[in-house]
């Protein structure tokens, strides 16, 4: 069955979500991934938004985390303070998996969604952190969506908006952060993970038709590709659910 790269990315992310996870969702493809997980393999996962809705029913895809569509059928509709407390609090926070996007990611999984160029006089300004810095600070597992382009995988991010492993092992601990950090970077070419000891990014999987070499060519820094294997493509079942149940209007896919 044919599929787009965007569909592949959504399915790859969905596969990272375990049953019982509380899934912090942003806008766009992260919402489709969370919905797909809930429909495919993690029916007891709980979708929640920084704006305060917990366990949203999502009858239609929201176009922003403030979209009234996130409120429908939720267990509770609080506010930002409630949502972030749920993550900062270890009792609930340890069950949260975050899904984030960014303009840049470095080899330690640090993210930039603020600007390119000097902060005080930027060449390109982006939206800024939103809740990303908070999520990355608080939760034990994060999935990061990226497009594989050289400038998006720089040696050093122009502005460190959301913490990955900072400068490597002990980086978070030294800074005073909770344990955590990204678990997977999902791109249009493959899936990167982080070494348990060095906290450095490595290539875990490449999509059918993509070579590890091509992935390296699209990054400024180099990563270990020795453990990489080809990722199984989306199944027909996965694709059908994604298309029919998650985004029938094709708003995001």
């Amino acid at each position, binding site marked *: 069955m044919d599929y787009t790269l965007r569909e592949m990315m959504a399915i790859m992310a969905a596969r990272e979500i375990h049953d019982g996870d509380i899934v912090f969702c942003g*806008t*766009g493809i992260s919402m489709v991934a969370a919905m797909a997980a809930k429909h495919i393999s993690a029916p007891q996962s709980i979708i929640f938004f*920084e*704006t*305060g*809705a917990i366990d949203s029913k999502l*009858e*239609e895809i929201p*176009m*922003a*985390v*403030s*979209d*009234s*569509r*996130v*409120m*429908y059928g939720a267990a509770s*509709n*609080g*506010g*930002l*303070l409630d949502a*972030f407390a749920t993550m*900062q609090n*270890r009792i609930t926070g340890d069950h949260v998996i975050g899904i984030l996007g960014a303009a840049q990611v470095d080899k330690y999984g640090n993210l930039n969604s*603020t*600007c390119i160029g000097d*902060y*005080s*006089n*930027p*060449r*390109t*300004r*982006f*939206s*800024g*952190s*939103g*809740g*990303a*810095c*908070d999520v990355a*600070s*608080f939760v034990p597992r994060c999935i990061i969506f990226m497009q594989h382009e050289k400038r998006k995988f720089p040696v050093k991010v122009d*502005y*460190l*908006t*959301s*913490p990955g492993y900072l400068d490597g092992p002990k*980086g*978070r*601990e*030294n*800074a*005073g*952060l*909770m344990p955590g950090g990204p678990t997977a970077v999902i791109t249009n070419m493959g899936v990167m993970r982080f070494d348990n000891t060095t906290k450095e990014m490595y290539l875990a999987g490449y999509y059918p038709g993509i070579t590890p070499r091509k992935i390296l060519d699209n990054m400024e820094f180099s990563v270990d590709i020795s453990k990489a294997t080809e990722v199984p493509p989306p199944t027909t079942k996965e694709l059908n659910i994604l298309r029919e149940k998650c985004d029938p209007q094709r*708003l995001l896919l």
Partner: protein
Amino acid sequence: MGTGAEKLMALDEAIKKYVKDGCHLSIGGFTLNRNPMAAVYEIIRQRKKRLHCYAHSNGTGIDELIGAGCVSRLDIAYGGNGKAAPTCIRFRAAVQQGKIQIEDYSNYHMSLRFHAGAMGLPFIVTRSGMGTDIVNRWGYSREMRSKDPKIPCKKLEIIDNPFEDWCGASKVVLLPAINPDVTIIHVQKADKFGTCRIEGLTFCDADQVKAAKNVIITCEEIVDTEELRKKPEYNQIPFIHVSAVVHVPFGAYPSACYNYYDYDPQYLNQVSKFAKDDTLYNDYLDRFVYGAKSHQGFLDMMGTDRLANLKADKKTGYAVDLDRR
């Protein structure tokens, strides 16, 4: 702060009375939802200048204020507006052109700063952001801070946990409170004294209100006091915090108002197109904001069919099957 007196006012009068050039302003809502747009457009029409704004993620509202040149300084977590403008376009342009001074925070940082202001505290604690440039880089210099008593002397402070490793924390971030001169929010229901009932997500509106020296409420409906007081637990804002109440149906349009109407994707896409070019955006302001004279004038331009199309479904609170491309 307000008394128990009636506070009904016309929008232009309320903005004139409370929003002064150079004042510190926060508006309610979040990206596409419940931004007090009628008030935002009236501020633009009254050509207010040099506002210092505080925003977590007020997409539409803040971007129009910036575009119209009302804003000099901005503490902000997020300048984005859903699909129509993943980064707010006039915000981006103003920052890249050095037209506004900004300082970056996270959404939790900004929410906490309003919370501290509402609680009457000088600062508040969080474990978010240590090791990042949000903590390490300041937008406002020490020198600028030392000259302006309305800005705290530091962006933030990191201290060791004075209770050893209680709760597993070795260090924490302290963030200074925000107490805006004015907060403006748009709600579904209010009475003439200013008691408000917000339906659906509350974002940070209640804290933004309680932190502010003066508060303007715009609302879809003025409701009888007796009616609101049958369920006091559903009123997030008691009248004691409110200075002015303005009745403005469709007062959040073109952003959404849960249970009343949806955001207008067509309008937001159109603004995004204009916003990409300075001249086009000025034409847009001339036509749709200055040219409209009032919010009712603006709604008349849109036409009743278009607004009817956005009407919220009773069960879901939004416009089901709305064309949102």
